[in-house]
């Protein structure tokens, strides 16, 4: 069953900003990554799912209900983490969480205490004085505390330190096991790679691809940089492995861009003495470039 359906929506803000004829679905129990560089239209799409804005044309529905007309009904089975979090500044964190729980008509704080422990959140301070990371944690608590069936998360890990980013990934994975449907936007590929079944990629408001993570990852390249003990080794390696070339700065170092050939590259390097190795993962921009270019 399609839990979230986006059908040919267009929302034109002029100057090529907005989304254009965008369509994709999120199936029941699936985690879908929503990738794109900044300004690609991720948030514009999510606002339409939340019923905050109406598409110029096309339709969006959640659980078969129109997102704008039935926004209030949909909310009861939905958890939302906005991309730009803002609270009522005069409250402290705990007051705010209690307030949101009441607005959501929850009898108690639901999973909030458990989540606060998981993210090591002390919510007693004034919201105005909280750091970006603290606010993000409060946003996460508010999105998950009702234990909703559907989660829409707009750049959920922004502002979190690496430890907390990992905790967040764990949280998503455990929610996935519990059968939640999740749409999660990001401009960081790794985050999506670790958690999602499929990903939709958009650029300049248009859909580039929707596919399983495996398929998308097969197009992904890493830049490998290996430094050998001697120059001859590097030369020999370049001869044996045609993707590699000598680095300009250092004759003992070879660089190469590898995808599926990673195994071969490493095994080949095993024949020589390796003194250093660096792996750079492609940025999303590079990834897109590669994606359009097909096989280089």
């Amino acid at each position: 069953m399609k839990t979230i359906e986006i059908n040919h929506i267009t929302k034109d803000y002029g100057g090529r900003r907005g989304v254009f004829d965008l369509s994709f679905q999120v199936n029941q129990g699936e985690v879908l990554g929503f990738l794109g560089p900044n300004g690609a239209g991720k948030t514009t799409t999510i606002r339409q799912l939340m019923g905050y804005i109406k598409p110029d044309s096309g339709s969006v529905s959640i659980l078969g209900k129109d997102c704008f007309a039935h926004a209030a009904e949909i909310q009861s089975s939905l958890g939302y983490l906005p991309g730009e979090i803002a609270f009522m500044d005069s409250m402290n964190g705990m007051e705010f969480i209690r307030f949101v729980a009441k607005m959501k008509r929850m009898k108690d704080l639901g999973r909030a205490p458990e989540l606060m422990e998981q993210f090591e959140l002390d919510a007693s301070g004034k919201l105005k004085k909280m750091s970006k990371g603290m606010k993000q944690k409060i946003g996460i608590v508010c999105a998950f505390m009702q234990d909703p069936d559907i989660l829409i998360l707009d750049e959920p890990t922004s502002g979190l330190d690496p430890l907390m980013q990992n905790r967040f990934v764990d949280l998503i994975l455990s929610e996935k096991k519990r059968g939640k449907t999740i749409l999660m936007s990001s401009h960081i590929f790794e985050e999506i790679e670790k958690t999602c079944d499929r990903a939709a990629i958009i650029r300049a408001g248009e859909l580039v691809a929707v596919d399983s993570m495996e398929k998308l990852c097969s197009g992904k390249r890493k830049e490998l940089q290996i430094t050998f003990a001697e120059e001859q080794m590097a030369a020999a390696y370049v001869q044996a492995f045609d993707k590699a070339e000598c680095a300009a700065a250092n004759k003992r170092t070879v660089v190469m861009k590898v995808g599926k050939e990673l195994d071969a590259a490493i095994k080949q390097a095993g024949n020589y003495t390796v003194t250093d190795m660096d792996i750079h993962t492609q940025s999303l921009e590079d990834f897109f470039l590669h994606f359009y270019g097909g096989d280089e």
Partner: protein
Amino acid sequence: MMNLTLYKREWKANWVMLVIFMGVLTMYATMIVSMFDPEMGDSLKVMAESMPEVFAAFGMADVGQTLLEFVTGYLYGILLTAFPAVYIIILANRLVAKYVDNGSMVYLLSGPQKRAQIVRTQAVFMVTSLVVMLVYVMGVIWMTSELLFPKELEMEGFLRVNAGLFGLWILLGGVCFLCSCIWNESKTAIGISSAVVVYSLLVQMISQVGDKFENLKYATPMTLFSVDGLIANESEAWIMCAVMYGAGVLCFVVGVSVFKKKNLPI
């Protein structure tokens, strides 16, 4: 109909501001009432004669002899319209546009309540807080009068004038609330609603100065609040009063329906 959680939260967030405005109004109200002196002659009147234009601009030109005329003349001309207007402008912005501007509207809409329900709650809050202000100010004036000049204040006329004053507040409240519902940015909402209010007050002041500008009174909604007419219980004054209530309520209703349908950049 409305959301009690949000209503309570608004009281918690705005009571300090309400108290401050009520404090300022207390000061003015007690001061003016205590200046009334039926035997010694009107000391303010002497002052008024020395600078007639200034007093005329503030609607204090022909202040009568009774305590009611004195109080309404000096208080209801400008003090009880301009100060509450400032309160109304700030509050209207806080109730809707500010939430949209900073994005926290997300959390007001995060429950199963419809947009209309949320924004209706905000309208109800504004009206009830104005009721509190009105009842308080009336209480202060009445008590000060009874304390200093027992049985001097003609109660029925006093109530009539206040019915009109509240109509004016509802009208201003409605206009500012509508602005807050229409514009997504706080500064636009505040800018436009203050422009409307300042224009209305200024034109009223100018129209009172002399015969030359008298016709300007038709260009400001403030004229709808006719203090003298309500004291005299004239039907024309009541019709204008009804127009204020009607237009005010209409603005609130339109505000709610605009908010229901608009695109929210949150």
